[in-house]
């Protein structure tokens, strides 16, 4: 059964097409990852699904409701955890939950039971009456997740849920997300640009320049790469790439800095050949199994990375750090 169905969704802002006719389905109980660099159309898609923006054409259904026609029903059907902190940090954890429950029309008799349940899930029960300001970044995120669940949504949207958190907290947060899927069979739609986190997803859609360029399980996507990855550092990488093309008919791709990389079926036997036969200078070489980063690079020809931040973005990042402390 599909919880989200997106059909030929398009959003144009004046001249720019932010989302370009994308279609996909999210099945009940799965973690669906939405991957792409900044400006690829992730946030626009989420905003449309959350009824904050209207699509230019095409449409989407969540839980059987249309994002265009049944806005209030959609809003009741989804839980949202934003990229930027959106808790009121002068209120207690419990007050944040209570206000949310009231805005979403959860009966107060029902609320108490649900508050206990969601606080239990994210292990914040003993902090329920503390002011949110005193919480750590990870605790705030967990509380936001709890809040997003209190009206029993059909799907939970997590927009870059681990952004701005330290690695340990990130791993910890993932335990809660996976527990949510396991114990509550919650459908989760998330965006991220941490490729190692995308591995936790059941299926991944890779979006670039407004289009979905791939959609499959992480394993299947990695298999598409073929074999292993060899990465070489060289001061003359253009010459090196040309030589590899001539000698082995392999397309070398630009990687970070003065590195290039090629995909080969079996690196163990291929590397000695490179050493013996290449004339171009190689300063260093490494071999590894493909990761989602490689999938992304091979599909979009670019690294997933932060593009130049506008002033507002820079400010926002600063606020985020402050909010998460």
């Amino acid at each position, binding site marked *: 059964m599909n919880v989200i169905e997106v059909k030929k969704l398009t959003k144009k802002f004046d001249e720019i097409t932010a989302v370009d006719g994308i279609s996909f389905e999210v099945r009940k109980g799965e973690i669906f990852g939405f991957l792409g660099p900044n400006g690829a159309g992730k946030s626009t898609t989420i905003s449309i699904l959350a*009824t904050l923006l209207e699509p230019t054409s095409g449409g989407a259904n969540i839980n059987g409701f249309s994002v265009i026609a049944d806005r209030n029903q959609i809003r009741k059907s989804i839980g949202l955890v934003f990229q930027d902190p959106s808790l*009121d940090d002068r209120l207690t954890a419990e007050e944040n939950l209570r206000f949310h429950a*009231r805005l979403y029309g959860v009966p107060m008799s029902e609320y108490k039971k649900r508050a206990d349940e969601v606080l239990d899930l994210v292990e914040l029960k003993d902090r329920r009456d503390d002011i949110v300001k005193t919480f750590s970044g990870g605790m705030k995120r967990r509380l936001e997740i709890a809040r997003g669940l209190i009206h029993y949504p059909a799907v939970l949207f997590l927009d870059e849920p681990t952004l701005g958190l330290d690695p340990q907290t990130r791993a910890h947060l993932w335990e809660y997300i996976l527990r949510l899927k396991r114990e509550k069979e919650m459908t989760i739609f998330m965006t991220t640009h941490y490729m190692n986190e995308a591995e936790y997803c059941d299926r991944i859609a890779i979006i670039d320049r407004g289009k979905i360029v791939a959609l499959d399980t992480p394993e299947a996507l990695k298999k598409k790469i073929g074999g292993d990855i060899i990465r070489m550092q060289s001061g003359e990488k253009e010459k090196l790439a040309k030589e590899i093309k001539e000698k082995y008919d392999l397309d070398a791709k630009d990687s970070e800095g003065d590195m290039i990389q090629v995909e080969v079926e079996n690196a163990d036997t291929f590397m000695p050949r490179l050493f013996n036969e290449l004339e171009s200078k190689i300063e260093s070489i490494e071999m590894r199994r493909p990761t989602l980063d490689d999938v992304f690079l091979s599909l979009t020809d670019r690294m997933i990375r932060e593009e130049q931040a506008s002033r507002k973005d820079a400010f926002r990042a600063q606020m985020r750090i402050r909010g998460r402390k």
Partner: protein
Amino acid sequence: MNLSAIYTIWERELIRYWRDKIRIVTTLIQPLMFLAIFGTGLRSALASSSLGIDFLKFMYPGIIAMSVMGVAFFSTISTVWDREFGFLKEILVAPVSRTSIVLGKILGATTIAATQALLLLILAPIIGVSINLTVVPELFLFMLLLAFTISGMGLLIASLLKSLESFGLLMQLLVFPMFFLSGAFFPLTNVPGWMKLLSAINPLSYGVDALREMILRNQISQVEIAKIILRSPGANAMYLVFFSFILVSAAVVAFNRRN
């Protein structure tokens, strides 16, 4: 419209205000500073003037009205901030109407600003004004009305404001002129036409006029009071109701369109 949503947003404003003790103290200290510095300084300079009343007493109701404006304005304009980086986003995706959000916000700011103004009445004995308890309900009603009007204006501006940067400019070009042209510091009975006109479109001036009449009513003679008052409280109330209707409706429309 959704009463439970309005109530929720209103309650949040109140809890936030109550928890922010520093803000409570500073918004009480600011009027005190005005009274102590401006009041005392100008009082000696104006000793020989024909005001017919001690300057500190003259200024006191105006300062209360200014405090209403300051608090109401600040509480609503913070929405700009909230929209970009905070809780407003959470409210905006909730299944409640924009109109409920606007009304909850405005009523929250109104309650806070009027309550704060009521607190300033405890300064009366220090200034030498004795306030009859029977006039307090009337005063509070006016404080609410003025706060409601200014909150509507604040939220309207917050919805129209394009960027956070324009906030500073706005303070310079709007808030200070509104303070100075409110009649808080000098009577508007005897000023040039252009100033009369600007004061007439300044909602704050109606609040100052009304509060002044009510607070000083039993302090000085009817003749004296007529020299510094423009309108009866009833007339001021009507103007304020008119202003609040326009501003709050405009705020609802602008907020709906913006978000």
